[in-house]
């Protein structure tokens, strides 16, 4: 708490950052929310910490909406993005299938839906190789729902829009407690660059 002088120097009873984060996301019970607000109206030190969390939340929102992250996401997210006006380019893969794919300049998000039987899997890894078999990325212990029947991977649109025409292989592996891996499926991306501009890099 401050000395009631409006200064932000110190706080004897700072609000836990996790509580501030929950407050911002409207996840606190009403009584706890009221207590946090009463504190914030007396304490500029905690107000400043909340403001920095708000800044981080806004920047994360912008980053998440930019489509520039490689991340595994659920069907609900993809549907929500499309329903709220985002242009989502989607590709569906069965195990072993080769799919021609590309991206246009006005696509907002790029996702691949990789079908797989996830039953019995404790941990699932998603690995990427180039046409020469060189590993180009690994997502370890991805979130998945056993009954989903697929994993949805969002590729970075920033990366995809700059990428040259190329072939990439994605592999889903189930990894048990002993580290033994079992192949769930391989998926072949035949990416054709259609955006004009510099040719990009060569792998």
């Amino acid at each position, binding site marked *: 708490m401050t000395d009631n*002088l409006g200064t932000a120097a110190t706080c004897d009873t700072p609000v836990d*950052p996790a509580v501030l984060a929950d407050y911002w996301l409207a996840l606190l019970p009403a009584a706890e929310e009221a207590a946090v607000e009463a504190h914030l*109206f007396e304490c500029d030190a905690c107000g400043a910490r909340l403001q920095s969390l708000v800044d*981080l939340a806004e*920047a994360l929102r912008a980053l998440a909406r930019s489509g520039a*992250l490689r991340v595994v996401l659920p069907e609900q997210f993809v549907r929500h993005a499309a329903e709220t006006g985002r242009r989502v380019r989607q590709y569906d893969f069965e195990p072993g299938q080769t799919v021609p794919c590309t991206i246009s300049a006005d696509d907002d998000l790029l996702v691949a839906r990789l079908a797989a039987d996830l039953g019995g899997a404790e941990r699932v890894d998603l690995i990427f190789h180039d046409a020469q078999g060189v590993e180009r990325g690994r997502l*370890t212990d991805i*979130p998945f729902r056993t009954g989903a029947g697929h994993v949805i991977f969002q590729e970075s649109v920033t990366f995809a829009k700059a990428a040259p025409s190329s072939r990439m292989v994605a592999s889903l592996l189930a990894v048990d407690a002993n580290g033994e891996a079992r192949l769930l499926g391989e998926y072949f991306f035949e990416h054709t660059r259609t955006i004009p501009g510099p040719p990009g890099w060569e792998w």
Partner: protein
Amino acid sequence: MFVGMSDAALARRIADGRGEAEAEAEVCRRMGPRIRLYGLRHLRSAAAADDLVQQVLLKTIEALRAGRLRDAMKLAPFVLGTCRMTVLDVRRSRQRQEQLLEEFGRELIPVQSGAARLDGERLARCVGALRERERSVVVMTYYDEISAIEAGRSLGISEANVRVIRHRALKQLRACMEPTA
């Protein structure tokens, strides 16, 4: 001379009409950021939060001038209560306007966003360094503030675990974004 003065002393000054303009300016300087944070949290729009600051400060100054704040020690609770009442009014009578502000507010009114001060490339690297579950939960949470229950259900993670994962991720991101010496 008013910067170091307590809320109660400022309130008394304004009610007494002594040094009124400067005391009022200090109340605005002190309470403005607090009201704005409250507005951002409850109205989810920078433009609406700025409107709230103006409305609440006007009501506060009017009350102080008229001597309606009986207990000068309770300026902050009074301002918080005024915020709550004003937000309720906004929600009741301006639902349509609020929707428009939510939709177009950022484009219509230039707002100085704190997020712009953050290094976007550095944040992307920090998010890229998170574990997969953390990154998925962070994207789900902040893309459109999808609830922990929804995010967890669709990712195969329990609600309690979503909370733990989100807090761990935020802690790591804050540390990653701290200025390096």
